[in-house]
């Protein structure tokens, strides 16, 4: 089934600036993996070496974090949207 992955600005550098990408998947894990297959440069930003999602990226289905549903096993319906919500730190300007 088709689901939409919503990509925040911080990660669009890896998706040719696209904000939404349509992928196939029956679970959150399948959909995100299909997304990473489309844009291989993003894989290292999404996954730990262990294959777990990185702890500074949350995935939301509706207004719920999939961590509070069934994690990567969370079942999806056709037309669902998964939103990637990474930690962002900006606010002031450091003199790097």
């Amino acid at each position, binding site marked *: 089934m088709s689901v939409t992955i919503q990509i*925040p*600005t*911080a990660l669009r*550098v*890896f*998706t*040719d600036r696209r904000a939404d990408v349509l992928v196939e998947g029956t679970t959150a894990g399948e959909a995100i993996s299909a997304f990473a297959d489309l*844009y*291989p*440069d*993003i894989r*290292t*930003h999404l996954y730990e*070496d262990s294959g777990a999602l*990185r*702890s*500074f990226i*949350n995935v*939301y289905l509706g*207004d*719920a*974090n999939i*961590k*509070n549903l069934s994690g990567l096993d969370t079942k999806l319906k056709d037309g669902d949207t998964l*939103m990637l*919500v*990474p*930690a*962002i*730190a*900006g*606010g*002031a*300007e*450091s*003199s*790097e």
Partner: protein
Amino acid sequence: MNLIDDSRLADLSNDEISRYSRHLLLPEIGIDGQKRLRAARVLIVGTGGLGAPLALYLAAAGVGTLGVVDFDFVEASNLQRQIIHGTKDIDRPKTASARDRIRGLNPGVNVIAHNTRLTAENALDIMKDYDVVADGTDNYQTRYLVNDACVLLGIPNVYGSIYQFEGQASVFYAKEGPCYRCLYPSPPPPGLVPSCAEGGVVGVLPGIVGTIQACEVIKLIVGGGDGLIGRLLLFDAWRMKFRELRIEKDPLCPICGAEPSIRELIDYEQFCGISLPSDEAPIETITATELKKRIDCGDELQIIDIREPHERAIAKFPGAKPIPLGQMARRVDEFDPEIDAVFLCKIGQRSIFAIRALRDVGYKGRLLNLKDGVNAWARDVDSDLPQY
């Protein structure tokens, strides 16, 4: 929830009643709320894009004591969004500039300038005397430090964060709901997400997000309204959309969970480094002057500009081949592993990701990072090139 104990409240003067009459006319704030605002002590961490509207609105609202923490100096590139500072403040300490502006706006506010970097050593001591902390910092280390110190001290952390056109806001208050680590248990490895200095930010965005933070601070102090505890507000200024996500308290949270593993402040510099793979080889760097020498000697080099076209247009690097960061892995075949490759971006941060991306796909040639990026080239080699 009552952050300000009744024993700290005192009557308002007639001048104060005139000044704050538009608050007093709101039954939700009224005389009692205004007294609470005057008694309140709020610490603003960072006097940058978020700290500027926070400090201005909280001062205007009559918060009695405002602490501001910053170690930085005002730069010209700050003024596009950090509206508490003016052109005449360039090169002044940000805390001094902020203090003067707050006093000019409202002399009734007691301003405490903490002209220092917030660290694990000084954070509890600085923060312990405040009722609320508003986080307007720009880096993960300080965000985790502020969060952890707030949890340990039992005070609310009014959070805001921005990137380009997008913002996040929430209230992390472990006594009543989740903390920042319930949402993001640990930070990204250094540099995995570009900073504001690299990524750019639309100037009004921190104005909006910082003003949302100021609103949350005021509601916490007067004890009313529906706060952002347990909710993450997302704002997209380009599409002009707000969204709200739920944040659950994590029973396994390392600092506010049932069995916390963090019981005191830790070494945040070290902690942010831990996430780096331990087997990763160090990134080789080359300085702008070294690179210039190698070019002048006629060395064969692959110089790769990883910036996108709009950014290359600001300061063109002569002779570099453009390959945007997000395309490294799929364009690995365009590299010759026999020839040294030099990667450049604005300040030498994103170019590190490019090197990592090529390593990850098994590229074996030598990869060099131009230290401090094109800005260093402009500073040390070619003064005709602008620094941005």
